[in-house]
């Protein structure tokens, strides 16, 4: 039995005007790339609904009169990210061994590894920079009165972040394992031991025993690169969430506009839309 003859598609007429092609084909390559990326973003957004959250985070009302002092928190975040990235790559070459391995690996990073001294220097100076920026940020929040209701919890989280930053500085100081590192850690652990009643046990916990021993360095290394960064990252997330939710506090010199009865409607006090 012969098959039924299928209808052929229409052929374009020769010499006639060309048919209207798909618009993507005629786009400039850059425009096409934009189009494609937007398609990918749209595909993800349709399945996650991320964009309202991002818009909530990025495009929010800020008070009138903000200045550069309001960027200190973001600067601290950038330095933390820099510390995280350089720290991850330093960990590729660092050996936390007491018997000379740690010091030799630092020397290897500084002297032999391509850009090693630069990355190590970024991590070292970035640590000081982070402590300085944390304190400047804290001073800004304090002197602008931005810790007051309803932002007290964010202040508390910030204080915990300050303590964790100091703990990062302390635990990281031992890792080069030169004379300065070793004795600074001995001194630091003994200062820690002056806490009444539990101080001696805390010192034993830090040193992994009654004396500076074989596992003290690895303990500090694990605290420095696993325990504290995780805690800090989680708390920074909570910190930023609360800032976004509660809004940035207006500068103290901004006069509160008295709500005028029956005046022009709906200009919220002290804020402007971006």
């Amino acid at each position, binding site marked *: 039995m012969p098959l039924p003859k299928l209808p052929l598609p229409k052929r374009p007429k020769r010499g006639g005007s060309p048919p209207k092609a798909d618009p993507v084909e005629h786009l400039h390559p850059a425009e096409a790339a934009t189009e494609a990326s937007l398609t990918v973003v749209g595909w993800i957004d349709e399945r996650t609904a991320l964009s309202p959250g991002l818009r909530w985070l990025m495009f929010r009302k800020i008070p009138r009169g903000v200045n550069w002092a309001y960027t200190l928190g973001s600067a601290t975040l950038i330095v933390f990210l820099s510390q995280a990235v350089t720290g991850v790559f330093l960990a590729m070459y660092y050996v936390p061994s*007491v*018997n*000379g391995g740690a010091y030799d690996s630092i020397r290897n990073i500084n002297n032999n590894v391509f850009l090693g001294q630069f990355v190590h220097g970024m991590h070292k100076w970035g640590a000081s920079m982070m402590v300085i920026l944390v304190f400047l940020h804290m001073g800004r929040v304090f002197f602008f009165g931005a810790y007051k209701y309803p932002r007290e919890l964010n202040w508390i989280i910030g204080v915990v972040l300050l303590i964790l930053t100091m703990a990062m500085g302390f635990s990281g100081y031992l890792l080069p394992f030169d004379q300065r590192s*070793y*004795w600074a850690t*001995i*001194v630091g*652990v*003994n*200062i820690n*031991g*002056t806490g*009444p*009643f539990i*101080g*001696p*046990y805390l*010192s*034993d*916990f830090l*040193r*992994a*025993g*009654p*004396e*500076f*021993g*074989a*596992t003290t360095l690895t303990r500090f290394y694990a605290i420095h690169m696993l325990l504290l960064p995780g805690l800090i990252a989680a708390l920074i997330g909570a910190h930023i969430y609360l800032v976004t939710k509660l809004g940035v506090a207006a500068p103290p010199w901004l006069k509160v506009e008295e709500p005028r009865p029956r005046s022009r409607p709906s200009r919220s006090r002290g804020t402007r839309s971006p």
Partner: protein
Amino acid sequence: MHGVVQGAGGVAAAAFVLPALGFALGPIFQREPFQWQIIGRPDDFSESQYVTKVLTIVDGVGEAGKSIAYVRKRNSAIDVEKHDQFNNYIALSSRCMHLGCPVRYVEAAERFICPCHGGVYNFRGEVAGGPPVRPLDRFYTYAPKEGQPGYGYVYIGPRYSVNSELQRFSPRDPAQPLDGIGQYVYPSRFDTAVRPPITNLPTPPVIPGS
């Protein structure tokens, strides 16, 4: 059903949290093994001069496990603390009792001086100035009498701490005062190093040709 699921979750969480916590906190309850070490012969030491001896406090960590003891013979004219068989030789730890830096003995001044924060100790290791909170720690020493096993050598044992009257206390970290209520505010470890028995002395090195 809810209770069972939450209970199972709690058990599962405890199953990894508790062992990990014990793993991290275990060293607090650990005893540091310490054996008598030979530091020399009786003729090596005098009553008026300190001899520097390097001790191994922790094995297997190289330089980080070494410590220094300043050793001299007991001089009953100046050493008025209680005399027994474990302080015929006075062995002072070089660990400063301010925050743990290494002190050095300055012969001309007859003082121990700490480079970090200026702690000063006199010839007996008592605080002569600066921030230290108690005299220098000491080590048990033991020199067997003639005829006893190990005769002819001086042995050094574990560290102990002293208060300002040079009474013995179990070893504490620096910066923890032991006068008054200090010994209760800064408790000793759960399991401190004990003085090993004097029957358990290391055998002296064999002298070549003997």
